[in-house]
């Protein structure tokens, strides 16, 4: 039985990854999860310099999900390389570094800094809804997405995944722009912009007023977008959005995803990634599936 998948020449032992921002750099969950078992660890977004992020409250639970407006707090690329990447070297898993920035040159600084590091792929975050400058500004316009993808591809030593926002009119157009600019893969969806109001305090639940919705509540939207994007392009798609178990993960694969990522559900159950991996294997046994790749886009 084969569970391995390949994206841009990088081989993953299974299609299960962590979604950026929900798993730290793996360290925080290593008490719970044997990181060696994961297809890949996708790290929390990192910028060229440390970012303070947004004021609190930064998180709020909503029906079937949660809102967050962390604002991409991160320690900056230097600390990340010395501490987080060094930690991940101990494990036999692939490392995908999520990169964020406020300007094109911020992104390029990080990409360049990572050139000679033990990083398997880069995931470019052009879809965070919680920062005022940069980030999503590059992810909501076809021309801006094309330009930043081209710039990054020009200097990147590792294959590049563009992480797309669901807060767009046509996900297919965005996927095509990323592909045309040379992206090696796309990942989706990032969170959906939302809002919650505390009616007892008559205030916004988040200090940032709006936040990104994640969790099982967004899964049908994510499956639909993965389906549309994977039919629009020939590059591999990494699917995510509310994956709680193997059934959810298989839905994404059948919609067209080569790999999947577990996000907010890590907060609900730190063992979710392992349960998804074991559940996929059980499904393959049950239905006599020899190769996980047979299931991709089967609907």
């Amino acid at each position: 039985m084969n569970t391995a998948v390949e994206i841009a020449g990088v081989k993953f032992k299974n299609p299960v990854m962590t979604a950026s921002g929900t798993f730290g750099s793996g360290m925080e969950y290593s008490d719970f999860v044997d990181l060696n078992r994961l297809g890949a660890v996708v790290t929390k977004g990192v910028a060229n310099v440390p970012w303070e992020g947004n004021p609190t409250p930064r998180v709020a639970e909503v029906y079937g999900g949660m809102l967050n407006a962390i604002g991409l707090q991160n320690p900056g690329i230097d600390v990340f390389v010395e501490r987080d990447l060094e930690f991940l070297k101990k494990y036999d898993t692939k490392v995908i570094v999520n990169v964020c920035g406020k300007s094109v040159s911020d992104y390029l600084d990080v990409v360049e800094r990572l050139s000679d590091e033990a990083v398997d792929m880069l995931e470019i975050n052009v879809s965070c809804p919680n920062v005022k400058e940069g980030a999503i500004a590059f992810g909501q316009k076809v021309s801006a997405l094309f330009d930043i993808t081209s710039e990054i591809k020009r200097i990147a030593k590792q294959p590049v995944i563009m992480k797309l926002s669901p807060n767009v009119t046509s996900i297919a157009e965005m996927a095509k722009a990323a592909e045309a600019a040379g992206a090696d893969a796309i990942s989706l969806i990032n969170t959906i912009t939302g809002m919650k109001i505390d009616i007892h305090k008559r205030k916004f639940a988040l200090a940032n007023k709006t936040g990104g919705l994640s969790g099982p509540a967004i899964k049908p939207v994510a499956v639909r977008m993965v389906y549309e994007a994977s039919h629009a392009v020939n590059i591999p798609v990494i699917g995510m959005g509310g994956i709680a178990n193997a059934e959810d993960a298989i839905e994404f694969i059948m919609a067209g995803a080569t790999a999947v990522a577990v996000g907010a559900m890590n907060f609900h159950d730190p063992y979710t990634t392992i349960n998804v991996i074991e559940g996929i294997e059980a499904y393959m046994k049950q239905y006599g599936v020899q190769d996980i790749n047979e299931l991709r886009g089967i609907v």
Partner: protein
Amino acid sequence: MKKKTEALVISQRILAEGIYDLWLETELARDAKPGQFVGVYPVGKATLLPRPISICEVDAAKSAIRLVYRVVGSGTAEFTLYQPGDNMTILGVLGNGFPLEAAAGKRAVVMGGGIGVPPLLETAKRLSNLEGGEKPKSVAAVMGYRDAQTFLSGEFEKVSKLHIATEDGSVGTKGNVLDAMREEAIEADVIFACGPMPMLKAIKSFAVANGIKAYLSLEERMACGVGACLGCVCKTTKVDEHSHVKNARICTEGPVFDADDLDL
């Protein structure tokens, strides 16, 4: 090591209006320290996140922890339905706890306000049980309540001298915990406190003005509880060693901080 595990409900009762007293049998009791907390999961399918609840008491011999919590929403409302023999899912133990060693040879005062009262019970108990060089010179408790529903007060009296403040003046000093400190002329070298933010801010100012060391336990909306999501940060005076910005994770570097390190 942190774990997500099943805990057996030993008992549950109402302590005061909206305040519940729950004993759980769990392996996590072995390593639990005062000031630490656990994440308790509601089972409702619509909920996602564990509810952070401070540990009120630990009975290591019986592998049991006591949680005294307030009902604030549908998740905590669900917890009130649990009966002896039921299982609950908890994540723990989380956070750092109070540095009891800071009380050695000192006049220690534990201060709690509202639902910040419970974690100080185990703190007061352990401070009172310290021996030899670790022993505090004295241990006093100052607890603040809204009204005459002074939950846990009888238990504080058993382990330390207790002073009470109530907002409506029905018991003890009328006012807050600092009013009680002043009215009763309570002397302190080190304060361990948990309560609402205005109370913690006032304690920090009081401690600075009087040359007292203070350790404050903070509360914030939390998601993961294990330091991954960066949801529950507080502002710090210096650049934090982990984040490399002036933010510290309440769930991991806290919930207890040296007041000098906090930008409240």
